Each structure stands twice: as C-alpha cells, then as structure tokens.
C-alpha cells in the first residue's frame, strides 16, 4: 500500500484514494476533423512509461479533491504532489531503478535491454 500525501489533508493511506490515470491530457478541440484512428487514440490510449509518470489521484474518502502526483512506476515511489492545473514540478529520479536494469519502455524488449556486465544475450535474470 502507498502512503499518499494529499495536498490538502496530508499523508493518508492509499485506501482513501482513487487513481485517475494519466494527468495533463487535453481534449482535442478539432474532434470533428479527426480521423477515427486519431480519435480512438485519444480516447483509449495512455502512456505507460517505466519511470516518472504524472497521474491524477482523487481523495475520495477525505476532502474529495483531485490532485496530481508524479510517481516512479518502476519503484512505486511518489516524487511530488501538486494541485490540479499546475505544471509538474521538476524532480530527479534514478532510472531505471529496477534490479534487472530493463529499458524504460518495459521489460521483455530485448532489443533495447540494458545489459549488465556478465549477462549474455537471451538469458533472463
């Protein structure tokens, strides 16, 4: 479980929160001109980075306010919390912070995998 710092209430247990997915998405104003594929992308597709990810959280059991958070998805470490409408603050994170050292776009992609000393192609650790 996470301990999440609501910008209004302070540190609270994750059970009080609802995750709202990726933050800072802007609805296109020219939806009527967009192709079905582009519109479908906007509606259904989300970034899924390994590393710093800006996401929305809703303090549903507490003050019932939405806010943004920066989270390192590889380590589940929260790096910053900031109110809705604000730009994400600059943070520093060690990437990728997993023991196997996979590439930021995810594990299983051997073409871009970062090799550790002594590790050979095709072996999994």
């Amino acid at each position: 479980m996470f301990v999440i710092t609501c910008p209004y209430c302070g540190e609270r247990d994750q059970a009080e929160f609802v995750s709202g997915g990726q933050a800072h998405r802007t609805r296109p104003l020219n939806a009527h001109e967009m192709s079905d594929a582009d519109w479908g992308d906007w509606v259904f597709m989300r970034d899924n980075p390994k590393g710093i990810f800006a996401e929305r959280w809703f303090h549903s059991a507490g003050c019932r306010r939405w806010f943004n958070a920066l989270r390192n998805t590889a380590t589940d470490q929260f790096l910053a919390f900031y109110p809705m409408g604000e730009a994400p603050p600059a943070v520093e994170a060690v990437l990728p912070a997993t023991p196997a050292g996979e590439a930021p776009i995810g594990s299983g992609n051997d073409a871009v995998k970062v090799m550790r000393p002594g590790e050979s192609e095709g072996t999994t650790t």
Partner: protein
Amino acid sequence: MSDARRRSPLHGRSEISSGEAATVREHAFLGKLVLRGAPGDIAPALRELTGTAGPEDACRSASSNGRSVLWIGPDEHWLVVPAETEIELARDLDSRLAGVRHHVVDVTDYHVAIGLSGTKAWEVLAKLTPFDVHPKAFAVGAVAGTVIGRGQGVLWRPAEGSALDSDYIVFIRSSMADYLWCLLAEAGRQFGMTPETPIGGETWRLAR
C-alpha cells in the same frame, strides 16, 4: 417541526457499553449542514451566526456554544449544530450570504452521527480504519474524512464548545449506520462489549 414519527436509522439500537473502556451511542438528529464557499468569503457570516469563523487549519474544527464548523475540504465545511436548529441556521446563512458565491445543504438525515467514548475508544476505532486515531496523532478538535470498515465516513474529535459528550464522533451515511453500529460492537468485544446482530442478519469476523 418535531414530528413523533421521525425515526433515526438507528432507532432500534440503544447505547452499548463496556464500562469505562468504550461506549457507543447515537447522537440522533444532530443537525448537519454542508457549506461550500471560499473560506474568506463565508467567514464573516459564520462568525455572526455560529460564533466562530471556522477552523484556520485543514482537518480541524472550531466550536462555540454547541455550534461547530468542521473543515472537510478547501472550500467545504460542515456545520454541526444541536438537533432541530439546523433549518433555521441554513435559512439564516442563505440570507446572510446573499450575493456571495456559496451553497448550503441540510444533510442532517443523510449522515448519522455515532459517538464513541472511553479509555479504549481509539483502539476500537483503530481496528476499522487505516487512519491514525491515536490521541497523539488525532488531537481534540481534529477532523478526518477516511475509510471506516467498508464505508466512508468522517471522524471527528469534538472540542469542549461543541457540547457533545463523546470523545469521537463518526459520521456515516445513513444506509450504512446499522452496519457500522454492529461493526463497532464487534470491534469492542475485546473490551467486553456485547455483539449486536445486523438488521440484515449478516455475520462477519474482524481479522484478528
């Protein structure tokens, strides 16, 4: 406005106690209003009508003469007042705040107030919520919206001016009041509280 037919969701329950360790009782018909509005805009009206301008800090309450203002969100407060005074207060607030961007709703019958007292009251609550209810962390006057059992509610430690004699007040939606009542009794069994059977007949065991 008092009507003999008016019944609280917990009308079939009476106070349960395990001596000085913990006592659970309902504060029936305690008046509750939701007031939305920028704290700076509503403070003068609050001071005039409740005797307090509202809490200065987040997650706190301010009480005066039995009327309390609870911080719920950055632009949301609850007013907790003696039974049957809330309708008049809502009307007064509305007229006093005319021209100010605000919103007053009477939620007296939407939330049920269950009071806990006793030396072990916080230990009973601690079994049901992830929030830290130890008296050192959750001081008198503090307010916290949190998860209680399977429901969401607001925890409050009323200060002296609130004229409420419980150490902790739990506000829970009326449909979950009976559930929480029985859950509190179950949580208090360690301290000698007698179990209560839920209206629906369901049974549960708290993880021990």
